[in-house]
């Protein structure tokens, strides 16, 4: 009940919009891959090509090496959960789950037992007789998940299934989806525009941009070692600081840091630094000043004014007590390789100033 899925050079154009532009990706059997990207990047189109609801203009979708590009949607071995409102309104939860079995003329008793078993699996054993409008959004998506699993597909396709739910339900359901996926070992493709969701749930995260794969790797790699400035910017928050590359080092905020990747020559660049890599220390003589602090649970995000600009810094909650807005501070960067990009807009540009001067 698991399969390898391969996107091979997929291209799909809608009028003048290129949704997929040579998309390549291979997903191993039993793997959970999140397709992540902004609206219009082609992630949903890629998923719909696997489901059979879109036919690529060129390229192919292969499941276990077999080209399924021309197989009709109702003959594919893939269960799909849609964004929302996909339960059949005239059928109760049990009949929704058993729909595929009914279509395949499975005897009533068998499909009823299977539906009840799946409803129990998704935590809704007592909701079998309820109609969709009698269920909450989260419950509806659980039923949709059960329905997608009813035919024991080799691939599970999830098209932003959590986006219409409130924050708390979203977190609990995504954990449940992951638990189920691990239990069943089913190959799963999960489309989302929420980077936190993708990073928390997937074995690998594939970041798409303009119909192409920008980077695909384990969540930690995508977050800590983004392959491109786009990935760095899209996954998490980034500070853009002015820097000067020299050899394999870059000077930024008065510090010399190693450059991630292959820097070329000597030039002015943007240095991309995550807020958690910025250390802020109270210092009455410091030249930087806390502008604002926003509580984020375990950490506090500080907006710090430097000479000529601002920088974001995440500090542990307990440290934030001494970092109220208006506090003078010094700013230092964590010593580790950083990503540099072509100079666009950056703040500040005190590359030659000593670190303790900012």
């Amino acid at each position, binding site marked *: 009940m698991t399969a390898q899925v391969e996107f091979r050079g997929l291209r799909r154009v809608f009028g003048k919009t290129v949704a997929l532009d040579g998309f390549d990706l291979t997903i191993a059997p039993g793997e959970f891959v999140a397709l992540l990207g902004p609206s219009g990047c082609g992630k949903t189109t890629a998923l719909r090509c696997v489901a059979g609801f879109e036919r690529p203009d060129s390229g192919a979708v292969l499941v276990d090496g077999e080209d399924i590009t021309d197989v009709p949607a109702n003959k594919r071995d893939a269960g799909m959960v849609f964004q929302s409102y996909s*339960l059949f*309104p005239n059928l109760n939860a049990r009949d929704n789950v058993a729909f595929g079995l009914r279509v395949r003329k499975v005897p009533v008793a068998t499909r009823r037992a299977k539906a009840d078993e799946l409803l129990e699996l998704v935590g809704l054993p007592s909701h079998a007789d309820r109609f969709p409008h009698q269920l909450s959004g989260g419950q509806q998506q659980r039923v949709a998940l059960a329905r997608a699993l009813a035919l024991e597909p080799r691939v599970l396709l999830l098209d932003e299934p959590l986006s219409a739910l409130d924050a708390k339900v979203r977190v609990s359901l995504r954990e449940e989806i992951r638990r189920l996926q691990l239990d069943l070992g089913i190959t799963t493709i999960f489309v989302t525009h929420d980077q936190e969701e993708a990073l928390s749930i997937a074995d690998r995260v594939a970041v798409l941009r303009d119909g192409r794969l920008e980077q695909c790797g384990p969540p930690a790699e995508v977050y800590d070692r983004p392959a491109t400035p786009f990935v760095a910017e899209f996954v998490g928050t980034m500070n853009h600081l002015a820097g000067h590359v020299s050899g394999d080092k870059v000077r930024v905020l008065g510090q010399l840091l190693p450059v991630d990747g292959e820097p070329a020559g000597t030039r002015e660049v943007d240095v991309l630094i995550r807020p958690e890599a910025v250390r802020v220390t109270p210092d009455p003589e410091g030249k930087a000043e806390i502008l604002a602090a926003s509580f984020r649970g375990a950490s506090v995000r500080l907006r710090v004014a430097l000479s000529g600009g601002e920088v974001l810094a995440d500090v542990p909650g307990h440290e934030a007590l001494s970092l109220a807005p208006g506090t003078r501070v010094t700013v230092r960067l964590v010593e580790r390789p950083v990503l540099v990009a072509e100079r666009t807009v950056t703040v500040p540009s005190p590359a030659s100033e000593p670190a303790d001067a900012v």
Partner: protein
Amino acid sequence: MTRAKGWLGALPLLVFFALVFGIPAIALVAGAFTANGEPSLANVGQSLQGGYLTAMAGSVQLSAVVALAGAVLGTFLAQAVVTSRFALLREAVLTASGVLANFGGVPLAFFWIATLGNSGVISGLLGLPSGALYTFWGLVIVYLYFAIPLMVLVMAPALDGLRPQWREAAANNGATAWQFWRFVGLPVLTPAMLGGVVLLFGSAFAAFATANAMVGTVVPLVTLKIASALTGDVLIGYENIALALSLDMIVVAGLVMAIYLPLQKRSTRWLR
């Protein structure tokens, strides 16, 4: 107190209803059961015999055919319009339906007489036999002219409500297009379709002017019999027969509702 105030708000409607429906209905029932100033079942009995019974059967038959054919054709047309990629076509058809659904009476009769009547502009081209339009089936075609647009107006919003995700979810579960319609599409549309059928039946059942202008007494219809009993130049003293026929029409409408309501209740089970 609040409850009483709530009823107060509905008072104008209740008064209006009593004036325009309650009083005439009472007068109708009273008249139907009165003969020569005495309480009697004679009028009702007579209204269910001979030519009157034939006319009632003709009206029911005509209305049923128009309702069923109009519902089927109107639903297909609505589906074609709703799924059309051309927004302009959709707008044009829906606007035209709004106009044509209210097109009736003598103008509608004249329209068809000029087109398919004995000297109609199309009759000659089609080689239609004389009087072809002035028959039961001719009347069906003419009634469909307003019934189909009426059904389009009823069904278009219901068809719009069929979410594309349902079709895709059905296909994802292995269903063919036919299985989608059988298990999901048609059950979801059934309440609107049933409502449309009843609406078309009622429109055709109560229609008078078009039939009067077209077929006169050639096709027996209850509305024509009522008119004849009320305003006939030859027959006088038949007013209470007309009231009895009207009462029969109310009973038929009630029977239709008696069939419709349980079906409607059953088909909307999933909405409650």
